[in-house]
């Protein structure tokens, strides 16, 4: 079943995400014309703040548009993941010492990757710099990280959109990790546009921020919360810069511990917005999953 779902889901991701592209020589030139209806839902289960492991498919119930679906549990934990990492280098108010912690956290994140994991690295201020499209060459990215420096202001919404689009370079499970203080007054895209784009992917967004000069990151507003909520991810807040490394590594571990449910939708409309509800059957726990998906 796992192998089956892996093939189906890859076809799905590519069918939805990548149309046939003709120009030879470009990586990820995928020539899939087959389009399946398989849906993958990344699920986090916690109980009293702790991860809940060891659940089976019988522990879950998934409704697509209110209709209970027959689901399978895909064993993805041994598979490589795709990480799209967005690093906010903007905001002048961040002290250089804090910025150092951010770079250290990025390095710790790279150390936490498995050899086959792929990572795309994007830095952003009032410009977006795609430092790397998805690669397994983690070592080279460490030196790239060291070359980052604080500059400008942040165009958070624009870069998140870029990250969502970059996700299409690989059909596998994708974690979009964005480090930012949550300010985004300088981007071109507006919040509704970005959230709409987020609803059209299966990317899971984890956002990281930290307290600075006594200001709670929550004060920066719920944009990141909304984004994480929409995609089934979370916002993590470090008490200070030096805690960032631990937060980054924990996110990676948490993402690997999530459950992946898959199903072929039945009894639902073929297109449009599909609301998803994932619950536990006969167990206590908090479930986080994307709120729905667009069938295009």
């Amino acid at each position, binding site marked *: 079943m796992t192998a089956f779902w892996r093939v189906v889901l890859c076809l799905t991701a590519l069918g*939805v*995400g*990548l*149309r*046939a*592209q003709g120009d030879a020589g470009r990586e990820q030139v995928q020539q899939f014309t087959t389009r399946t209806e398989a849906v993958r839902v990344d699920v986090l289960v916690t109980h009293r703040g702790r991860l809940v492991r060891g659940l089976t498919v019988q522990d879950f119930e998934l409704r697509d548009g209110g209709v209970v679906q027959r689901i399978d549990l895909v064993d993805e934990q041994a598979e490589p993941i795709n990480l799209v990492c967005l690093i906010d280098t903007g*905001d*002048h*108010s961040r002290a250089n010492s804090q910025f150092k912690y951010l770079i250290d956290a990025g390095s710790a994140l790279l150390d936490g990757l498995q050899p086959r994991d792929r990572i795309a690295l994007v830095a952003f*201020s*009032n*410009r*977006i*710099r*795609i430092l790397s*499209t998805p690669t397994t060459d983690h070592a080279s990215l460490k030196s790239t990280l060291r070359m980052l420096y604080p*500059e*400008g*202001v942040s*165009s958070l919404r*624009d870069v998140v*959109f*870029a990250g969502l*689009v*970059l996700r*299409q*370079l690989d059909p596998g499970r994708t974690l979009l990790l964005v480090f930012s203080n*949550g*300010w*985004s*007054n*300088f*981007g*071109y*895209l*507006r*919040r509704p*546009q970005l959230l*709409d*784009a987020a609803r*059209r992917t299966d990317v899971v967004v984890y956002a990281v921020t930290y307290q600075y000069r006594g*200001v709670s990151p929550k*004060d*920066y*507003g*719920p*944009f990141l919360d909304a984004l994480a909520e929409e995609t089934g991810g979370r916002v993590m807040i470090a008490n200070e810069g030096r805690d960032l490394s631990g937060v980054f590594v924990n996110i990676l571990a948490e993402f690997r511990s999530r459950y992946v449910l898959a199903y072929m939708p039945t009894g639902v409309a073929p297109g449009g917005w599909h609301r998803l509800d994932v619950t536990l059957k006969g167990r206590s726990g908090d479930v986080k999953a994307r709120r729905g998906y667009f069938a*295009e």
Partner: protein
Amino acid sequence: MRRCLLLPSLVVVCVATGVHVSAQSANYQDILEMYRRGEFDAAVRDFAGLPAEERYRGARSVVRESLRPFRRDVLQAVLALHTEGGLGRGLTLCDATPEARRGTPDAREQALLGSGFPFFEYGLVETLKTQFPDDEFMRTWYVTVMAYADAAFPGNYRCYENAPARIRVHPEMQLALGGMHEKTWQQVEADGWTLPGFTPSLQDAERAFRAALQAAPDLHEARLRLGHVLLLQAKPDEALETFREVRDHLDGGFAYVVRLLEGQASEQRGDLSRAAESYQAARVMRPQAQSAIVALAQLAYTQGHRAEALEHIRQLPGAATAGAPLQPWVWYAEGADPWSWYYFGTAWRFPTYLARLRAIVKEKR
């Protein structure tokens, strides 16, 4: 710190280095000495004559100097000079307002500087408040500045409390400054400083822009903003017509921005191919700017053309150059360009504000 972005001339404050500042006719240290000697009028005159960058770099460096060790007398003199200097600019503006209405750049800059007096002071005040949180002098001085601002800009006092309401009722400000839900109270407070001259509704803004344009039809940037206001009122046809009228009169970043806005208006009409043409035109104008690329990518993405969106995004690295220049959309949306900030509503109310400002200064003297 984002305040520094609102006005390009203030960006240097963020990176001010050095202590001694030169100027064409007088430098900041000389002016400070004049002030200490009681030559107030001359000090204000020369201060107003300093280039903006030197004015603020000088103020910051002298303040820094005074802080190590803390010399209240120096600090007090600097702050007072700065305050009076700002007011001096406001007085100049009063005389220049007719010129400003004719749209000459110099007069417009004066108008901007005059109106920005409380804004200019704000960063300095914040720095000092941090340095001396319990110092009675700081509190007193801060209150003084706030009182000036209150009198000169009705409703500006306690701007932190007033700003949310202003932002909520003003969709363009939400666009430009971000929604309230994304803001810290510090940001809201900052907005409060920049908002007092803004009109409370899109309808009022439209009326203000039309009135300004009737008085001075060649205020092209104001016409651009009128088009934007129309767009935000979901009047894409009128917006497009306005953009058509103005786009041949704008160059540089404004020309780029008008193409972006034309694209948005076309999207609003449902004419996506025309929107793409506008974004593409913007992209050709400013190959190094990223907003047009993001706009093209987003347009493709929402149509389900994911591969095309990806192609656009992949071209972003080529748009990255050394340094991080402010892009046209950024300065337009954030009001970093002096003219946009000036035009938006403040143009309509300048004479009233500055007449009051002049009265305050006379009374103080």
